[in-house]
Structures are given as C-alpha cells and as structure tokens.
C-alpha cells in the first residue's frame, strides 16, 4: 500500500520524481516513439504491469483535515535494463488508468532517463514534448473555461448614508 505524501516533490526540472510524474501523464504515442532506444539493453521485467486501486486523499482548501476522496485505478510496472557494458538501471511507473502498455513504456523510459548518456537525447525527444503537450492541454482547458466566464457586477447603492432618509420623520 502506498502512503500518500504531504510534502511536495522536489520541483527541479531534472529530478527523477519530476520526470516520473511527466511520464505518467504522457500520451501513449510519445512513449511509443521513444521506446526504440531500449533495444540496446537487455530487459528484465521485475514486476509485470498490474492494475490495482489506490486511495486518493485530499484536504479541503489544501490545508484542512485529510479525507479520503475516492479510489482511482492505477497500473504499475518495474523493469531493469542491463547493457553489455554493465550499465544498469531500474525504472518504475505508476500510471493512472488500465493501460498495461503505457505503464510498461513509462517504466522503460524512467530506466533509460537514469542512464547519463541517454538523458540529453530523451530530455529533448521525450520530456520536452510531454511538457509542451501538458501545457497545451492546460491552456486549452483554461481557454474553454474562460469562454464561459461571466463578469458579475454590483450596482452601487445610489441612496445616501444608511438611515439618512426618514431621520426627521
């Protein structure tokens, strides 16, 4: 059972937590187009993709008491990559939804990103496009919400000070 963490993950662009989060939200085709890099490694699947439920917790207003928001479907996977020159890395993934393929590819990409000489290539061909995709998706959502925005305004009181009228009555 995973424990929820209240502490924010380190927000540096290159931290592993950061790229794992990006991979988990990546569209499948971006992962597919980058998995060819894994061909030079021998792959061991430590944990085959498996789907389960995780409890999501929330805090009202971000600071209230913790409560259980609901369960989400999560697929997880772990792979170990070994190269002939004894380079090895273990990649893990926890991905929303039931796509076993996506969980597998996300774990593969996590492992490859930990290999120093592959990182710059993948940063350019995978992480940047994911960031752009997520930014575009967020912009589209904001724009859609903005189009329904209604500006309310309050008509200012035209009467004088409260109780001014009728004082002499």
């Amino acid at each position, binding site marked *: *059972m995973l424990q929820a963490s209240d502490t924010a993950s380190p927000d540096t662009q290159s931290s592993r937590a950061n790229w794992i989060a990006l991979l988990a939200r990546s569209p499948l085709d971006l992962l597919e187009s980058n998995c060819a890099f894994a061909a030079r490694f021998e792959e*061991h*699947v*430590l*944990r*085959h993709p498996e789907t389960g439920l995780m409890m999501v917790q929330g805090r009202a207003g971000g600071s209230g008491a913790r409560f259980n928001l609901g369960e989400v479907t999560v697929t997880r996977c*772990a792979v*170990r990559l070994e190269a002939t020159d004894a380079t*090895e*890395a*273990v990649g*893990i993934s926890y991905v929303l939804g039931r796509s076993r393929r996506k969980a597998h590819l996300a774990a593969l990409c996590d492992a490859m990103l930990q290999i120093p000489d592959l990182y710059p290539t993948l940063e350019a061909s995978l992480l940047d496009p994911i960031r752009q995709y997520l930014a575009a998706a967020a912009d589209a959502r904001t724009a859609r919400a903005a189009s329904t925005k209604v500006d309310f305004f309050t008509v200012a009181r035209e009467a004088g000070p409260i109780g001014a009228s009728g004082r002499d009555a």
Partner: protein
Amino acid sequence: MAQDLLQVSDGFANPVIESQRTFRAVLEALAHPGKIVTLHGNPQTPPGTCPTAASILLTLLDSDCSLWIDPAILTPAVKGWFTFHTACTIVPEPGGAQFAWISDLSVLPAFSTFCCGTDRYPDSSATLLINVPVLADGPLVGEEAVGLRLEGPGVPSSRTVYLPGVDFAYIARFVALRAANHEIFPCGVDVYMTTPETIVGLPRTTRVDIARGR
C-alpha cells in the same frame, strides 16, 4: 520503501501461469504426504537460496502475510526480494510468523516457538518450509539411508521418504518434534521439505516415524 531495486532479481517470468502451476504442485504434495513432487519453472531467486521454497512463498504470500526467515539465509537481497515481489512482512521472531523458511534441519527451532494455532482457530498456525539436500523415495544403492516413514490421511498404508545426507540426530529430533506436534492436534504446524527441484508435504495429520533402509 527505501531499498535498492538494482539488487532485486526477477520473480516469475509469467506470474499467472507459474504461480498456478506451483500452487497445483503444493496442493498435490499436501494431499499426498510423502509424495515427491517436482516443481518446474522456478524464479530467479536470490543467490544461495532454495528456488522451490522461494517459488512456493512467492505463490502463497501477499501483503497480509508474515514471514520468518532463518537468519542463516536472511540477507538484504533475500529480504528485498520478498518485500518487493510479495509485499509481505518479514518478522524478526518465529512466533509472529504465518510462514517460516528454515535453511537446514540442523537449525530447525522447536515447533512450539512457532504459532501452532488455537483450538478455535487451528488454521492460524504456521507453515514451515525446510530445505533438505535430497529427497528420495528409495534408499540409495549400497548406502544405509535414514528416512521418514509416514502414515495418516492421504497415505495408502505407509510411505517412506529418505533423506540422504542428513545427520541421523537431526532426523530423530525432527521425528520427536513431529510427535509433539501430533499431540496438540488439531493445532500444530504444517511442514514442507524442499530440495532445489522437488517438494514433499507433511501436513499436521501425518504421523512420522524413523525408517531405515538399505
């Protein structure tokens, strides 16, 4: 979960098929005490451990289970492997464990140190996996072999399992422990003996005696 995943070797290559196959073999062994059952397709276990015992534990354990491992084989790699693949709890004392893995008959603790269940819940007792060098259904040619003569449910008249390479004193001690185990029936522990390829089931209903063969 602060552990180095680089140290964790693979589990089952095909978890569904292989864990079901192992489960079937375990059932077979328990239903026919003393029958030597061969286990195929064992996982890549941590070095220095018995692959059949590891694959039985991999099949049976989940996050609700507790496991005690003999300190002789409890390395960080073994601990990491079980924690990663089964998410079970590894307990420091044998008394708190539902499953126990013992690397040799010579280091077998008394059965009373394990959970033997209660009259109300005899099913809450521990299951022991004991590694032995060889399990044979007949004495080796030209050698005097000592073994276990088994009687009880699932055994037609009697069946004998020989344990070449195990010191007589340890076999005698095991038989004495089993006799004590039989006295507290329906409580008591269940035992599997494992070699790197085969297993034998010795449920608590089986009566065990010393057999000598030539």
